[in-house]
C-alpha cells in the first residue's frame, strides 16, 4: 500500500509517504514561508492531484495544484478564486478544498468571507455559488473566533444535486438543487452560548466541523461549539451524542472511511481553555455512531500537553488515522487509533491534515 499524508501548516506544506505499511517519511517542506490552511488529495484521476489552498502573506490567498506528488506546482493564470465585482468582497482565505465524489472534475472550495465555490476543471479555477451568497440570512451572518469562514463542504456521495456546507458562526446549510437554493438545517442543535430561550436558532450556530461517510451519505457527524451531534437524514434533525465524552467541546470530527459507525473527536476543556482534557492528548472514538466513546492515547505523550488540534487537522481513512497539533506534531495510527506513532514534530502549527491511499 502506498499512502500519502499531506500536512498543511502555518508556514508550509509537508508531504509524507509510506510504502507497504511502513513508517511515513516526510519530504522537505513546500511553500516554506506560506500558510497552507487547506489541502486535498484528489485520487479520482489517472494520477493523484494534490490541491493546496495557500495564504501568501501580504500577497493574498490562492489555490495551487501538483500532479506529481508535490515536486512541481501549478497555478491558474488568473486568480483561481476571486469575488465578482458586484459582491464588493475580497477573498481572505481558502478554508476547504473538497473533490466531488459524484461529479468528475468538480472540486468545491469553502472560503472566507463565508462563501462556496465550484470548480469544473479539477480545482484550477472556481466560480462563486451565488445561491448561497445571496441567501437572505447572509447579512446577519457573524464571524466566529476564526473569522467568517465556510470551513466544511459536504457534497452528497452519490447525488450531485445535494450538497451541504458549514460556516462559523453561521451553522449548517444544505441544498437539494445543486447549490441554487439553500436552507439552514440546525434543528435540535443547541447553542449554549446564547441566552436562555434563544439557544436553538435556525442559523447563527457555531458549527466547528461536520463529517460524512461516503457509504452512508445521509449520516453526518457534527462537532459544535459545545455539543457533538449525529444526523441520519443529511441534517434534517440532529441528535446529541456527546454524553459519553469527557468534554463535548472540540474542533475536529472524522468518520472512518471503513465504517460509518466509527467516529473520532478530540475533546478540549472548553471554549475558554482550549487545551486537551486533563492536558493529555486523547482521541475519543465511538464504534457505534456515538452511543459509547473510548479514549485512545496509547503512544501519545504521557506528559502534560497544552496544545490543541484544529478543525481540519484530524482525518480517518484507509491510509490510517492522523492528527496534527498546534505545536507542530503529527501522530498517526494504523490500527484505528488503538496505538499512535509520532510521524513528525517541530513543524509549524498544523492547520490541516489529509491522507489517501494512492
Amino acid at each position, binding site marked *: 500500500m502506498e499512502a500519502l499524508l499531506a500536512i498543511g501548516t502555518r508556514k508550509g506544506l509537508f508531504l509524507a509517504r509510506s510504502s507497504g505499511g511502513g513508517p511515513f517519511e516526510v519530504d522537505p517542506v513546500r511553500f516554506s*514561508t506560506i500558510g497552507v490552511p487547506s489541502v486535498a488529495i484528489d485520487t479520482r484521476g489517472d494520477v493523484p492531484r494534490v490541491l493546496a489552498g495557500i495564504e*501568501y*502573506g*501580504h*500577497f*493574498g490567498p*490562492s489555490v495551487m495544484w501538483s500532479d506529481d506528488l508535490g515536486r512541481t506546482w501549478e*497555478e491558474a*493564470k*488568473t*486568480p483561481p478564486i*476571486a*469575488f465578482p*465585482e458586484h459582491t*464588493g468582497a*475580497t*477573498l481572505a482565505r481558502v478554508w476547504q478544498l473538497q473533490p466531488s465524489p459524484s461529479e468528475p472534475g468538480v472540486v468545491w472550495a469553502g472560503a472566507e468571507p463565508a462563501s462556496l465555490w465550484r470548480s469544473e476543471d479539477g480545482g484550477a479555477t472556481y466560480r462563486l455559488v451565488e445561491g448561497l451568497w445571496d441567501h437572505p440570512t447572509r447579512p446577519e451572518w457573524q464571524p466566529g473566533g476564526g473569522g467568517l469562514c465556510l470551513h466544511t463542504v459536504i457534497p452528497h456521495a452519490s447525488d450531485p444535486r445535494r450538497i451541504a456546507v458549514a460556516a462559523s458562526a453561521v451553522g449548517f446549510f444544505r441544498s437539494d438543487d445543486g447549490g441554487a437554493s439553500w436552507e439552514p438545517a440546525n434543528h435540535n442543535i443547541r447553542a449554549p452560548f446564547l441566552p436562555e430561550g434563544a439557544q436553538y436558532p435556525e442559523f447563527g450556530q457555531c458549527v466547528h466541523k461536520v463529517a460524512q461517510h461516503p457509504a452512508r451519505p445521509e449520516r453526518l457527524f457534527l462537532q459544535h461549539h459545545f455539543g457533538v451531534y449525529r444526523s441520519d437524514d443529511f441534517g434534517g434533525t440532529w441528535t446529541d451524542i456527546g454524553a459519553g465524552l469527557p468534554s463535548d467541546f472540540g474542533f475536529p470530527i472524522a468518520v472512518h472511511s471503513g465504517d460509518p459507525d466509527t467516529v473520532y473527536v478530540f475533546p478540549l476543556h472548553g471554549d475558554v481553555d482550549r487545551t486537551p482534557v486533563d492536558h493529555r492528548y486523547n482521541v475519543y472514538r465511538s464504534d457505534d455512531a456515538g452511543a459509547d466513546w473510548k479514549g485512545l492515547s496509547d503512544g501519545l505523550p504521557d506528559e502534560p500537553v497544552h496544545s490543541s488540534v484544529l478543525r481540519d487537522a484530524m482525518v480517518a481513512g484507509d491510509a490510517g488515522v492522523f492528527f496534527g497539533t498546534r505545536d507542530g506534531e503529527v501522530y498517526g495510527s494504523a490500527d484505528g487509533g488503538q496505538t499512535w506513532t509520532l510521524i513528525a514534530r517541530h513543524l509549524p502549527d498544523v492547520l490541516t491534515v489529509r491522507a489517501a491511499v494512492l
Partner: protein
Amino acid sequence: MAGPVTLVTFVVPPALRRCIGDRAEVRVFAVAPSGEDVPTLGAALDTLRRTHPSLEERLRDENGHIRRHISMFVCGENARTLGGLSCGLPPGAEVYVMPSLV
C-alpha cells in the same frame, strides 16, 4: 481615443519573482485614457493584469485595490501619498514594489 503611453518598469521583490520567470523586473505600457490625461499607476497595473496576471493578483485584490501590506514607490515616492492608483507616471517610470516587513 487613447492618450499618452509610457513604458513602466516594475521592480519586484524576491518573494514574487517566480511570478515573472525569476526576473527582478517586468516592463509594461501604461496608457492614459485620453489625450488630456497622463498614464497612471492604475493603468500600468491594468496592463500588468493582462500580461502578468499571476503577479498582478499578488499586488491587488479582485476589486482592484492595492493589497493592504503592499506599497509601491514611484520614482522614490510612496504612491499612496501621490494619489494611489491615480498617481501619474512620468516617462520611463520605475515602480518599486515593497511588501511590508513582518
